[in-house]
């Protein structure tokens, strides 16, 4: 018999999509039965109280969680989010319900040994509920009490060789796409760059010293599967400089209908016979391709590497060989001054260990932002407030047309004194000799 009646949540058990309500109930039941004899370190009926408090929110149309208190582990300023409910008498099991962020492995690859260790830990010292994964990328362990935090940290660091992720005004846990591990489009090893920078900047990740949050995300190609361009202060997007590699025989196979276009992504509907001119050549945004007399040609110098032709014919067209990364900066969600997309700062840099060229850009940006950024001002907002030119100055990068979609439409240039011959000190009396008052 359930501890709390949940008539509203029960309606989310029907329908085909996996029901989180059913899963919560399953966990509540498993904890109550406790077949393994786990000595639960937080209330055994915690999942019953999660269901109870959530049902109350469904009834009230409002959340019942309060602001986080300041909780954490010794020496770190992030990784733990304090959480308390506003009805502790009704739901004592979730009165204290803190979250831990655990830094996920690259590409979110796991072995079951690690996951089972994590499950055992969270059964024992937490609610048994997780997010796989949080929006930033971390493994999120939902719900434990303050005395458990150091114990959990001790166990993950000593027994699992694993650290917490970021929260607050620090470097948030970096995340990456699947990359070269299982994708032919990846122009660099997203997982290695992500891991190397995560390790290099552990101090920035665990000890908040920034004006606000700062995110790195790593996309292997311009398809941007981890949405770095929309949601990371520094977005690393794989790209290439030389020619798209063409396999003529495979092009013919696509044209002849032997290989389904777009890797079979459109097989749920009859779109008719594949038409290379209509589906590839005419959709190319720069019109740099042609198909004449059975021959596909690409004017690579005019190509902007949008990936469309490669996505449509992955067996015939491959990314070039001279690969690297474009760095875009300043993306963020709307709060506060409106959403921003990443803006191109570094068009191309090779991705070579130990990644010093990339670290130079990162550290120059951090120096500027930590010096000039206001409290809770994201990098993108600082760039808007002080101007893209200031970003170029701070990073020592020369302005090039690739930095803009179009040049400015107003002439209000903030000329600097040293850019104008003679400077700004002039003699008004000399001027008046020729110009009466």
């Amino acid at each position, binding site marked *: 018999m359930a501890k709390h009646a949940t008539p509203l949540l029960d309606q989310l058990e029907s329908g085909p999509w996996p029901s989180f309500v059913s899963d919560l109930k399953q966990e509540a039941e498993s904890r109550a039965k406790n077949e393994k004899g786990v000595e639960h370190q937080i209330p055994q009926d915690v999942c019953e109280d999660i269901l109870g408090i959530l049902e109350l929110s469904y009834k009230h149309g409002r959340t019942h969680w309060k602001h986080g208190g300041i909780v954490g582990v010794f020496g770190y300023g992030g990784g733990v989010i304090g959480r308390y409910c506003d009805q502790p008498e009704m739901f004592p099991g979730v009165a204290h319900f803190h979250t831990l962020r655990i830094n996920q492995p690259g590409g979110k690859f796991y072995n079951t040994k690690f996951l089972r260790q994590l499950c055992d830990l969270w059964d024992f010292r937490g609610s048994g509920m997780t997010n796989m994964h949080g929006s930033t990328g971390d493994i999120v362990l939902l719900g434990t009490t303050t005395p458990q935090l150091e114990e959990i940290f001790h166990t993950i660091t000593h027994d699992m060789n694993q650290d917490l992720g970021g929260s607050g005004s620090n470097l948030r846990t970096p995340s990456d796409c699947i990359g070269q*591990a299982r994708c032919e489009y990846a122009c660099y090893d997203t997982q290695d760059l992500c891991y190397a920078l995560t390790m290099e900047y552990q101090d920035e990740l665990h000890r908040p010293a920034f004006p606000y949050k700062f995110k790195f995300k790593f996309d292997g190609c311009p398809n941007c599967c981890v949405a770095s361009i929309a949601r990371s202060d520094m977005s690393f997007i794989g790209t290439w400089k030389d020619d798209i590699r063409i396999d003529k025989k495979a092009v013919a196979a696509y044209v002849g209908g032997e290989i389904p276009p777009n890797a079979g992504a*459109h097989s749920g509907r009859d779109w008719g016979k594949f038409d290379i001119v209509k589906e590839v050549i005419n959709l190319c945004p720069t019109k740099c391709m042609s198909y004449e007399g059975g021959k596909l040609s690409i004017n690579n110098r005019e190509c902007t590497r949008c990936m469309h032709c490669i996505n449509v014919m992955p067996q015939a067209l491959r990314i070039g060989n001279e690969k690297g990364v474009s760095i875009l900066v300043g993306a963020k969600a709307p709060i506060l001054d409106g959403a921003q997309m990443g803006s191109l700062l570094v068009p191309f840099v090779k991705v070579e260990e130990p990644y010093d060229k990339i670290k130079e850009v990162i550290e120059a940006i951090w120096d500027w932002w930590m010096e000039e950024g206001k409290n809770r001002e994201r990098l993108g907002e600082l760039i808007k407030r002080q101007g893209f030119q200031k970003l170029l100055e701070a990073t020592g990068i020369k302005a090039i047309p690739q930095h803009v979609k179009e040049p400015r439409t107003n002439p209000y240039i903030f000329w600097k004194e040293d850019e104008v011959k003679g400077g700004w000190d002039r003699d008004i009396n000399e001027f008046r000799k020729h110009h009466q008052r």
Partner: protein
Amino acid sequence: MAFISSGYNPDKPMGNRITDIGPRKYDEFYPPIIKANKGKWKYHQILEPGVLVHVSETGDKVFTVRCGGARLMSVTHIREICDIADKYCGGHLRFTTRNNVEFMADSLDKANALKADLESRKFAGGSFKFPVGGTGAGISNIVHTQGWIHCHTPATDASGPVKAAMDVLFDDFKSMRLPAHLRVSLACCLNMCGAVHCSDIAILGFHRKPPMLDHEYLDKMCEIPLAIAACPTAAIRPSKVELANGKTVNSVAVKNERCMFCGNCYTMCPSMPLADDVGDGIVLMVGGKVSNRISMPKFSKVVVAFIPNEAPRWPTTTETIKKIVDVYAKDANKYERLGEWAERIGWERFFDKCELEFTHHLIDDFRDSAYYTWRQSSQFKF
């Protein structure tokens, strides 16, 4: 339940302490076939919805079965995932950015057996545990935030509307009939932990009432200057307030007509709650994308200013989304993303075809960027 120590000694917190070790290294967890072929992949193909093959230059093939799930996941459920991975995949698996689980097998036979197994598992309540799909020109899992399960600022729930929406969109998770892939995301407030602002369809929780002021406690609970500084429209000013008991306290006053309901003040000051059962609800935004394919990445645009929170299944929200998806599916060209389609036919035609009412709320009036969204042309459609 007696407290059991992990070995941590609170009297000597630095004794034997391990810090700054970061995550486990990615390659510790690679399945052998991934390790052997990293950087050598030649091409891939979606064999059927939810089943992919990647072919390496070495001739190796890896078969991936992708299945959806709630990102809110119990350890019991994760252990079941582990059992499956142990049985078919040598104890390896991965998760995708969109909260799907991917099982990788080294033969098509294994992948087919795995798929059948996954599809056969159901929760006691009747829903699938591991529906296979989410590939190609269909709808993958919805990325989302915490909502009422764990957050203090949400204007809607997350897991509930996502479950309700995915039930309605389930056929498109299981098939690939759309003109292009379609990404749905949910953020339960405009903090957007999930950054939904570049999604084909974004479900966004939003408040519509200015903060209430808990004068008696405000100065004790909050740093008043921080609350004032938090307001992007300068609607908050310091004020002295006389309480019912005659005592005068320091507090704040809010110019309600300047409030844009962002909740940033509440983030800084718990004595300024905005949440309200009638005021809160959902904004629908459409036409965003993050890919650079064909057209540049785009922000999503607000097409429905407000839908009430209709717990537990949000029917108006899910029906509106379904309608937009179906009209798009019927009307767009092959490869055209929802936003590209809307731009080609024109937004006036989008509202027309989707039978959505256009109201003054949908015209931007926030800061300079608003101007660039008005129509500076005599070109329009009747």
